[in-house]
């Protein structure tokens, strides 16, 4: 301690003789308790509310919050999967419906603006006829990290990583 003060303020340290110049009357502490209790009695404070230290339980996320948060997270993940997955309108076309070439061509010409690039790329090369459409460069499929399915364990991990405030923000 002396070294500390010596380093910070050497001039002060040199001059300080003793540390404590404060004195007090003899027997001061022995009589102190009685004087305090006399004052307490004089104020009429003798009946006081006893101390009750209540140990608060550890903060837990309530089940209701967890369920709502799980639903919110699940909805977010579904939305992410939906928007990031390539549109699959044309995936639903099946061979069970038989259409003539003319019907297919008419349909395509009518709905070409609604078709995605990769769907157009799926269309076989046009034969030599007046309805030949130019080929369009296919874009590579987007890479995503979205899992194919969300398990309850995934939801639990996500919830465990979140604080109550973050959960409240989502809600």
């Amino acid at each position, binding site marked *: *301690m002396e070294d*500390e*003060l010596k380093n*910070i*303020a050497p*001039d*002060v340290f040199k*001059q*300080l*003789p*003793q*540390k*404590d*110049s*404060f*004195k*007090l*009357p003899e027997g*001061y*502490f022995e009589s*102190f*308790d009685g*004087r*305090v*209790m006399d*004052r*307490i009695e004089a*104020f009429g*404070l*003798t*009946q*006081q*509310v*006893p*101390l*009750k*230290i209540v*140990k608060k339980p550890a903060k837990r996320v309530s089940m209701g919050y967890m369920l709502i948060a799980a639903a919110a997270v699940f909805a977010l993940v579904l939305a992410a999967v939906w928007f990031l997955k390539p549109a699959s309108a044309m995936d639903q076309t099946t061979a069970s419906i038989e259409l003539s070439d003319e019907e297919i061509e008419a349909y395509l010409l009518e709905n070409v603006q609604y078709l995605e690039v990769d769907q157009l790329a799926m269309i076989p090369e046009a034969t030599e006829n007046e309805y030949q459409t130019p080929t369009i460069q296919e874009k590579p499929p987007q890479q995503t990290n979205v899992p194919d399915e969300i398990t309850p364990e995934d939801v639990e991990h996500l919830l465990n990583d979140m604080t109550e405030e973050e959960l409240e923000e989502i809600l």
Partner: protein
Amino acid sequence: MITPTSDEKILELLGAAHTYERGFRLLMAEYKERLYWHVRRIVLVHSDADDVLQNTFIKIYKGIAQFEGKSKLYTWVYRIATNEAISFLQSKKRQATSPLDESANLISARLTADTWFDGDEVQVRLQKAIAQLPDKQKLVFNLRYYDEMPYEEMANLLGTSVGALKASYHHAAKKIEAAFKEPD
């Protein structure tokens, strides 16, 4: 010596109406000396320290139910004593009829007039310099210089980081050094 067991015993006694006074007396026995010197170094004069200390314990007696156990018992009573001492000084400043009344000269006059102060001129200068520090720096300096309290313990008591306390002590010591260099 204050031990965790003492605090447990005190809190147990304070937890029941029929042992409340016993617990309070035990609390006074444990902490009155340490709190007295803490208060005395803030208010300087013995009679003022006596008043402040009594008020502190009366507040503790009335308000023990507010202790939530989030900190150590000493930390809680220490804060009450500190607030009482600083409020006392602020009340004295408000009573001063002019800014000059609360100057270092008044502190010097009060010290030399106090029967229970037997320091020499250097000690008077030191107390004047400490009295003019900002409240937080004053507390830190007193705890470090007089009580030789480790910074880690001080950090728990004052709720401030060790780094900030070291900086505070450094600034306090530098200000005291500057005050010593001024002509008296």
